[in-house]
Every structure is written in C-alpha cells, then in structure tokens.
C-alpha cells in the first residue's frame, strides 16, 4: 500500500530550465494538493485539485502550473525555474472535503542554481 508517491526525490536544475514533478496516489482520493516547505515559512499551498480535470490556485501559485488528467495523478510544472523556487515540494491527497486529514508523500527536494 504505497499511499502517496512523489517522483523524483531529488533534482538540481539551472535557472531557466523547466521540469515536472509527479504525484501519484492509490487511495482513490478526490482531492490533491501541492505544497512547498521552506525554513521558517511552514507549508504553503501552491495549487490544488478537487477532482479529475479540475485545478485551482493556492497561496503561492506564481511560476507553477498543474494538471490532473487522471484521478490518481497530479503534476506540478515549473515553466522557467528560478532560485526562489528552491524548496522541498510535498504532494498530499484527501478523501473528499478539504478538512478531512491529508496524506502526504515524502517530498521532492529541488535546488535551482
């Protein structure tokens, strides 16, 4: 029972490069989320999805795009990476309403040089 799986686990990019982070969940959850975690800032919501084919902006969406083509997958894209996007990115999912417990993956550590 994998839960929430994130790939890759680590990545180093150069400024201006693009990449996609993949999140997969096997719990048949409707809601999925992307967060970033920075020292002293806590977890901040980037984008989220309330179901297949839907996406919405969170607290810090600029510079990121997302897609949810399949219920079990939620992709986070960086169009043109900037050093300010160096962070640890976490994906989470929850069964239905947003206030139900969220289940997190183990994160992707991304460095932008």
């Amino acid at each position, binding site marked *: 029972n994998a839960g*929430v799986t994130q790939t890759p686990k680590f990545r180093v990019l150069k400024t201006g490069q693009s990449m996609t982070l993949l999140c997969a969940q096997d719990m048949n959850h409707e809601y999925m*989320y992307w967060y970033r975690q920075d020292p*002293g*800032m*806590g*977890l*901040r*919501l980037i984008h*989220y999805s309330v179901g297949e084919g839907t996406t919405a902006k*969170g607290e810090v969406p600029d510079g990121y795009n997302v897609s949810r083509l399949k219920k079990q997958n939620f992709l986070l894209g960086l169009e043109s990476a900037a050093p300010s996007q160096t962070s640890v990115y*976490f994906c*989470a999912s929850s069964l239905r*309403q*947003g*206030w139900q*417990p*969220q*289940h*997190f*993956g*183990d*994160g992707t550590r991304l460095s932008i040089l």
Partner: protein
Amino acid sequence: EDQVTQSPEALRLQEGESSSLNCSYTVSGLRGLFWYRQDPGKGPEFLFTLYSAGEEKEKERLKATLTKKESFLHITAPKPEDSATYLCAVVTNNAGNMLTFGGGTRLMVKP
C-alpha cells in the same frame, strides 16, 4: 487573514520529562484543527483532528486539546522516538476549506 503560530520553535526534553507544545490561531470561522508529525526527510504524518473547543484526543503518549484560541499537544513521559517536528494546521471558512499551517515545533528527546 488566518494566522497560526506555534511555540516554542524548538524544545529539548529528557526522556520521561513531560511537556506541552502550543498552537495559537487567529482565524475567522474555525472548522477544524489538525496536528501532524514530521520526521526528517519525510512528509507530515497525520495525528489528530479537533473540531470544537473542549475536545480532546489521545494517542499513546500524545494528547491534543482545543480551546477557542489555541491548541496544546501534551507529551507525557516522552521517549527518544518521539523526536520529530510537530505541525499544527487549521481549516477555516476564510481559506476555502484549505489548510493553513504553523511553522512547527522541533522536539528533541534525549535518553
């Protein structure tokens, strides 16, 4: 704007030394408060949800309580394996049912 503040930022305890972590919040329309545990290099792991003032929940050495302004995570006779960062988060009417996290408390329990 919803605000969640956790204190202290870091806490060092001896094994068996009980203590409490605080999560204070300034929000409009609290719908729920969550506690998570995060180990180094891992994602947050769900511990408790509290929905109304006066509610309490327990799990092993942990007990979470909720008032109208804050929540406490009480740790009784902690063990070294309780060392982790503990995160508090709220869901409110303001934030469209999304979580707003505090900065966390890093707990270190020494044998």
